[in-house]
């Protein structure tokens, strides 16, 4: 049963990803991205980290996807006809496949340590406590990064005088 669920999620993810990289229409590609990201959220649920699944849906599905569609609008992908795929395609395919092959070999050749004991599901509050205790500094740094990104984005995207 679990396996089936996993397979469905995997198919969603891979299918969405393929759609992102192969589809001619950019907006459709964005939609396929959303599909893929939701699949990832499903995988997180499968792994019993519901918190991450929630975060995934909220941020990726809610913020990032919207941001991307806005960017597509502002760069007028609908009106201006531009080439979407470059000349590097064969090389790119080769590189990607090589990478995949390398990773796969590594994975299958290595013996991974397994936790012999029972899987314990990590409850919500433990994660929260940990975030504010042990991982407090990275948490704050992450907030700093977000702030910087925010300010930076505003500065970059501002309309200067005299620009159209």
């Amino acid at each position, binding site marked *: 049963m679990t396996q089936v669920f996993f397979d469905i999620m995997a198919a969603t993810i891979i299918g969405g990803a393929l759609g992102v990289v192969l589809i001619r229409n950019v907006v459709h590609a964005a939609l396929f991205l959303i599909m893929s990201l939701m699949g990832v959220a499903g995988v997180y649920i499968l792994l019993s980290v519901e918190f991450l699944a929630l975060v995934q849906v909220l941020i990726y599905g809610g913020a990032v996807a919207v941001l991307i569609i806005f960017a597509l609008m502002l760069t007028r992908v609908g009106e201006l006809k531009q080439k979407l795929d*470059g000349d*590097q395609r064969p*090389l*790119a395919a080769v*590189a*990607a496949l*090589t*990478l995949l092959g*390398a*990773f796969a*070999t*590594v994975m299958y*050749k*290595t013996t991974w340590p397994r936790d012999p004991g029972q899987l314990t599901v990590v409850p919500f509050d433990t994660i929260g406590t940990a975030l504010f205790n042990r991982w407090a500094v990275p948490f704050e740094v992450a907030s700093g990064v977000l702030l910087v990104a925010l300010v930076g984005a505003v500065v970059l995207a501002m309309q200067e005088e005299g620009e159209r």
Partner: protein
Amino acid sequence: MWALPALPAAGFVFLLLTSQFLPRKGDYVAIGLMLAAFVLVLITGKNVADAIGDRSLSLADCFNVGGCPLAGSERSWDWFSVPGYIDIRIGTYVDQITLVMLFCVTFVGLMVMIYSTGYLRGDRRYGWFYAIVSLFIASMLTLVIADNLLLLYGAWELVGLCSMLLIGYYNDRQSAAEAAKKAFVTTRVGDVGLLIGIIILFVQTHTFNIQQILAMAEAGEIPREWLTASAVLIFAGACGKSAQFPLHVWLPDAMEGPTPVSALIHAATMVVAGVYLVARMLPLMEVVRGMPELITGIGLATTILAALIGLAQRDIKRVVAYSTLNSLGLMMVALGSGAVGAAMLYLFAHAFFKALLFLSAGSVIHATEEQDVDRLGGLWSKLPITGPVFVVGALAMAGLIPLSGYWAKDEILVGLRHGHLTPIVLAATVISLPITALYMARVVMLTFFGAPKDAHVFEHAHESPPSMTLPTVLLAVLAIVSGFVVFEGVGEALGFHSGWMGFVYNLAEGPEEFSVDWTLSLLSVVLVGLGLAGGYWIWHGDAAPARRAAAFSPAGYRLLLNRFYIDEAYQWAIDHVVLAAGQVVAVFDRAIVNDTGVQGTGETTSFFGWLGKYSQTGRLPNYALAIVVGIAVIVIVAFGYRG
């Protein structure tokens, strides 16, 4: 003992810097220092004599370390050392041979400096002259007191340098510059041999100290091939400096220099440096089979060649130059038979009469502004001092009894007779005696007697100033009496315990008694007399017999006049061999070293840079691809390493 070369060296530095500003360009500084050096030598000699007399020490003891209160008879200081491998010391070593050389160098040096105040008065480079002469004296003194070959070689080179500089004194004359270059290059050939010989000895013995090397050579500790090689090479160096055949070609040309230079360097001191070297290294040379024969052979060749050429030369200085070659060859012949005492005696006497000949020839030139004997003649009446002293020098050179040259030559003949070489050597030397007498008589007759050949020259001839005539007179006196030191009585009167032969001798054989070999003496007296008489007869008056002789064999005359065409042969060899090789090397240097090596590597790098710029496409995807490929490679390699 170090004060000895230090004095003129200081003079050199001082004069080089300040001679422009001093009155009379500071010649008195040089002369004063020279006088001081000479006095020091006299004091040293007196010390030796006293030490021998007072303590009845044997002579060998006296010169050894600690045996005698000589100022540094043998002392050394550390120079540089690599611990455990080499330890090079620098120091002084004084023995009888050294003492003789010191006396000659300082005395003749003094005479020449005084003479030059008259000869070179008012000349443009007057101050520079004294500076360089001071440097020369300093180097020469260092050379004779050096105890190790490295120091000796350094002084040797310096002496050669000074010689070259002074030959080219008249630097507005092309011929002088050429002569200087020729002198330096020819002696260079010998010097390279000397250096290689020194290095070979060092490699074999790990020391530069002369006495140590000689001891090891006599004890047979040096392998035979290396010993032979180094002996031949060192002798080659001596040949270069002492102008032995075939490296003799520079000496006649060196007459381009001013006459005082010729007197000092090319008669009395530098050219005998080679003789000194051979005498010093004689124990090493005698161990090598065939070496004494080589030395004698070359000496003999030089002597006879020079005597024959001297018969036909017209420049008065050239005649004296060839007579120098004659004498040098004779000294080498003596050394070849191991007759060190005789050779040094001849060196001693030769220093005086040869310097005398040069200086008085200089007086003649100064008087008449002319050097060609075909334009001189009849100057006896016009030059009342120069004439007689020149004749004294010529007679001493020829070996007329009882002048110094006679005693010296006699000792050489005795040494040859008692030597181990074939009697042919003795015979050849005996035969050379009348030839020498002949050409000396010729030059005297043509210059001072007979009818003047150029009336204009004759009219203007005048005697030289006292600054020039005084040294010549002093030298003439010495040329007459210096031979008498062979007598025991004279030696004892001077403070030494015996005559010359008991003082200066071949250290391997021991002191000799002075004895007169009546047969040889009689023979030499007769031959010399015949030679002189013959010369008088041939060249007196209008020299008609000479002209008949020349007409008799024009080819022979031309051969002699052109110095056997040796110079021309050398020039041909240089043009066709040396310069051609130089061309090849030049092409190699330009094409391979420069174009390929230096330029080439630069251009290759530029080329690859130019090629590399095409990778900067400026496009993001290309760079991204590069990154991904890099990552893939890293993963594969890392995993390959571990797994």
